[in-house]
């Protein structure tokens, strides 16, 4: 698959080292995707990196990706500015199972950068395009200065319940201070009628899953987005093999029931 050329039309610095790129295809060609899927972004001369979709707007040929500069490719992407070009292959992988949420309460549980792959669902919820009976977002971050989408998150609460918890904060922070599992423990949910989408550090997801199971949310209704080193994005190279699955092809979104057997194996 040959990368399409996209141009950076806007760049938003979220906080130092983490940024959002708004990309436009020169032919305004739509690229339809399911939230939770990802693209391979190609920084010319450096390489490719798998980055989840973090916004809607594909009808206008626009892509949105939020990226943390961590390796050589993402650091090269960080250097891109408005008007610069990059290559895009995708979409790849399996996204969030939006077909399963009809009539259910949807819990979105995000940690750190994990909010990015859930943001398109939040946007759908705000546009009234979700069939869930209710949507609540639980977002954990390191500190208030390291929250994503600071300007728009306050607006989200008009359409969905939003609980934000930071690990470290001072008296000026109006939300929770502590780990995200604490406010999650405090809520009342009808477990049998709830579906949960989790994305964040695996440690965080493990603890959140414990809370959800105690609230009698079935394993079959818990979905998580996994992250491994993805290279080819089509299940050929084996870099992202995880148990019997390839994260790039069979994931990155998995049902907890299906992956529980190896989710807790430390060496995988």
């Amino acid at each position, binding site marked *: 698959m040959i990368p399409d050329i996209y141009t950076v039309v806007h760049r938003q610095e979220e906080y130092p080292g983490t940024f959002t790129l708004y990309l436009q295809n020169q032919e305004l060609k739509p690229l339809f995707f399911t939230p939770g899927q990802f693209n391979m972004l190609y920084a010319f001369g450096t390489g490719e990196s798998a980055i989840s979709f973090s916004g809607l707007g594909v009808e206008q040929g626009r892509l949105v990706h939020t990226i943390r500069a961590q390796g050589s490719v993402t650091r090269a992407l960080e250097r891109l500015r408005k008007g610069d070009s990059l290559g895009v292959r995708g979409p790849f992988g399996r996204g969030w199972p939006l077909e399963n949420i009809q009539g259910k309460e949807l819990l979105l549980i995000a940690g750190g950068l994990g909010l990015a792959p859930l943001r398109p669902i939040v946007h759908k919820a705000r546009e009234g395009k979700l069939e869930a009976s209710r949507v609540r977002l639980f977002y954990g971050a390191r500190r208030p200065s390291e929250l994503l989408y600071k300007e728009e998150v306050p607006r989200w609460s008009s359409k969905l319940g939003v609980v934000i918890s930071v690990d*470290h904060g001072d008296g000026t922070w109006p939300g929770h201070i502590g*780990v995200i599992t604490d406010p999650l423990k*405090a809520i009342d949910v009808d477990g049998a009628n709830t579906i949960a989408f989790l994305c964040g550090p695996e440690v965080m997801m493990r603890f959140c899953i414990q809370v959800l199971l105690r609230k009698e949310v079935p394993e079959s209704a818990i979905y998580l987005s996994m992250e491994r080193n993805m290279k080819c994005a089509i299940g050929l190279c084996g870099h992202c093999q995880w148990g019997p699955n390839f994260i790039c092809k069979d994931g990155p979104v998995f049902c907890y029931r299906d992956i529980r057997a190896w989710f807790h194996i430390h060496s995988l």
Partner: protein
Amino acid sequence: MKTIAHLLHEHPFFHGLPESDLQFLASCGENCVYHKGEHLARENTPAKHFFLIRSGRVAVETFVPNRGALCLLTLHGGDIFGWSWLFPPYISAFDARALEEVRSLRLGGACLREKCETEPRLGFELMKRFAQIATERLQSARVQLLDIYGSNSPHPGTTQ
């Protein structure tokens, strides 16, 4: 007007306890309101009370020289604060400060200890509930220490 026993019954900490136990404990309790900025407890002072937070936000803090009050976690309606009254020397380990108007039930520590000694079955039931919450807080503190949202993955046996 709700009685103390009724308010105890409403708080999650006492869910499932028989009415007779709540009546037994009610004489230890009083209803109280803390305004924004007021302290429920101060570090290194006698821990006289056990707090059941009914509404509002409480910061559990410690003072760090040159940095001021450092908030470790916030507590909310349905949470509890304080178990230093359980163990000698009965001294509070942290500050607890109201971040907004806080409505709480306050139970006397000495009174509670006496009730638990008098009625060991109830005492054991309360200890189990304290132990569960203390365990959860310990787990949360450990996860906070991992700094899981940082750009560098946590390394076993090290702290940043």
